[in-house]
């Protein structure tokens, strides 16, 4: 049984995968390739990492407002993250998660910071929590 952190639900669903933590915000449009799921922003610290199947913890989005469509496309192209865990509410990311049926939650700063001690997680987007191994 892992440790559970309760957050706030954004979009429903269950997702499980390795935790990938981005310490900085991501611009999904221009920053992530919707076909491969790779982070293509060469100035981002996770450059070239794949989002496919991971539980992505990211503070929030930045930049373009069409990031929602990129998240939706990641899902349609089967390269989407298994779930997203945001530190701050972000409508660009959350709207993409609703359309792409990707579970997502919002987690307060102190809990979000503890995720880095773990390698794998399960997100319950219906009830708004993350369980870490």
């Amino acid at each position, binding site marked *: 049984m892992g440790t559970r952190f309760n957050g706030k639900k954004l979009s429903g669903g269950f997702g499980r995968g390795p935790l990938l933590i981005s310490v900085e915000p991501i611009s999904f449009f221009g*920053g992530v390739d*919707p076909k491969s799921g790779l982070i*293509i922003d060469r100035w981002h610290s996770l450059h070239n990492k794949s989002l496919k199947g991971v539980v992505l913890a990211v503070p929030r989005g930045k930049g373009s407002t069409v990031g929602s469509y990129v998240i939706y496309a990641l899902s349609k192209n089967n390269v989407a993250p298994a779930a997203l865990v945001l530190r701050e509410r972000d409508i660009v990311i959350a709207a993409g998660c609703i359309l792409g049926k990707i579970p997502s939650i919002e987690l307060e700063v102190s809990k979000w910071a503890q995720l880095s001690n773990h390698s794998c997680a399960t997100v319950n987007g219906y009830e708004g929590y993350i369980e870490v191994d």
Partner: protein
Amino acid sequence: MAIDTRVLEEILSLAFTEDEKRDFIPVSSVHISGVNYYNIGDPGLEFLRSLEESGLKFVVKTTINPGCSDLVDVEWQGCDPSLVHKQKEIVEIFESMGAKISLSCTPYLDVNKPKPGDHLAWAESSAVLYANSVIGAWTNKESGISALASGILGKTAYVGVHRKECRIPQYTIVYEGGISDEVEAGALGFAVGRVVNDKIFILKCPELYKLSHVRQFLAALGTSGSAPMAYINHISSKELHDTIRPSEEISISHDEVIKVVEELSSDKEPEAFIIGCPHLSYEELSRLIEYPLSRIRLPVYSFTSRSTASEIVFTRRHENLKVIKDSCVLWCGLKYLKHKTVATNSVKAAYYLKNVFGLEVKLMSLNWV
């Protein structure tokens, strides 16, 4: 996927925290991003088809961002006809839903001019920043999809900068270095966006006063950060004078601005010059067509709205200058031309041309072309 108003309500409600009262506010206009086929791809087009099939219509004035092709003068661009066909289909869907076919990222210049205090649901980041910071209108930075939902439902969540108490600046940014041209204005915006992230701020920068420089500043700010507004000395409406002064002050040096230019800019020789991100205003395009031909040593591709282009009287013919309407700088013609390196005076364009089109990009002021 069947889309109904329940899903759209759910999307708008994402803006509320769980303990927040779920208040909505009517909007007087909507501006939608996610029109360019390169932005949304086939999955986005399929989503828009399902919206149209659901019979949903816009109930407030709704304008749309540019696409990826000049839809008036199509042939000369050399673009893949199937791609142009898809771009036309996207635009036709918006038209059938009742949007005005503005195809412009600068609606505030002509087709969708808000008044100070108007509540809006706009989604183009540079236009959101302009509406809040220069005009004094009130809009959150919407997602392309939440703006669509607002256009159909006629309202937005009454949160964020729709509330006076959320328009209070958190920082004062002080920049005392010079701004020699539009590239440095954009680089300053990019540097500030990285520092402030999503926080509203006051900018103390006596050198930022030309509107064309302010537009470059705001477009780059919206690229590197997510702040919905800024108070800019000399430019912002009287709201600036009434606001609380933040205690935290952050200085940005000229060296940091130059570093952004160096970071984003390639040293390879450009094969074309891209101008018009954000879309050129009437004044900017008028200046460009009067530009001395002998100084233009590269083919220049300029981007503006069909509305602005229709007002310009072309007094002479420029072989090297093309004026492209309806399209963003992520333009299908650039794919056809197969250039490896292009120049631009826009920091926002440099970021997206590099990351989305994979081009080498050199940042250059128009003065140097």
